[in-house]
């Protein structure tokens, strides 16, 4: 799965997510990616997020919208992402990763899996990583 979130100079946010799904999946299986609020969500009032990971778990907790809900409650992107990922892990045993940007341009790339490749550019500065802590 791949995804992107952005905020433009007008303060508008957007998200995009695309995937080939799960290896050897049943024909017709649709995961979280195409489901609004699960594979991604964007609302100028709060921010935008794109998700990746165990699709069935992501759908059960509606992960992308859950993160924005936490941001609506005042959490910064990193805390909102970790809180939602932790809920998914404890509630349904699912692992995954998310990228988040809020309407102020604060961002996070967080994951409960061992790895997630990610990159970000803000103010002409490039950041990237694969392992936790990078």
């Amino acid at each position, binding site marked *: 799965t*791949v995804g992107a979130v952005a905020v433009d100079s007008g303060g508008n946010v957007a998200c995009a997510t695309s995937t080939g799904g799960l290896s050897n999946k049943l024909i017709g299986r649709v995961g979280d990616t*195409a489901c609004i609020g699960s594979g991604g969500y964007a609302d100028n009032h709060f921010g935008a997020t794109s998700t990746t990971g165990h699709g069935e778990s992501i759908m059960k907790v509606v992960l992308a919208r859950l993160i924005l809900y936490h941001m609506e409650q005042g959490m910064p992107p990193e805390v909102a992402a970790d809180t939602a990922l932790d809920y998914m892990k404890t509630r349904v045993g699912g692992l995954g990763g998310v990228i988040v940007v809020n309407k102020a341009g604060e961002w996070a790339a967080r994951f409960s899996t061992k790895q997630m490749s990610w990159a970000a550019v803000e103010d002409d500065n490039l950041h990237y990583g694969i392992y936790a802590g990078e």
Partner: protein
Amino acid sequence: MKPVIVVHGGAGRIFKEQEEGCRAGVVRAALRGYSVLKQGGSAVDSVEEAVRSMEDDPHFNAGCGSVLNEKGEVEMDAIIMDGKNLDSGAVSAVKCIANPIKLARLVMEKTKHVLLTDHGAHLFAQATGVPEVPREKLITERSRERWKKNLEPDSNPEEFQKDLG
């Protein structure tokens, strides 16, 4: 407002030999999306550009490089959303499209619907002039090998993927 873009290339297992390709792929995608923003482009244009870049990169499970279903075929899903007005478009189970994210954006912009699937998405792609690509063009040797390995009697792909996201 200073523009920002963040991209991910998936939370599945990345083998050592794939690491550099994945790092380079996400960096390339982020820079392409950022370039759109720097030129005054919208957030929607930016995320589409970034995702297209990764769909075209065989290191990632999307577009070219997608994993295969039980029949050894590609079935892809994509979604795009504009935070300005909550407009959204998505496609699922599309097969012979190089960039499903482009098709998702067309669903958002050209229809009253949020999600088109399978045959309907295929007909919509034809109607909007999105070219079909041969299905073989989206399948990499790595995806085929993984599919074959998962078909072996003692394999357990679900268990293998359980802790990987």
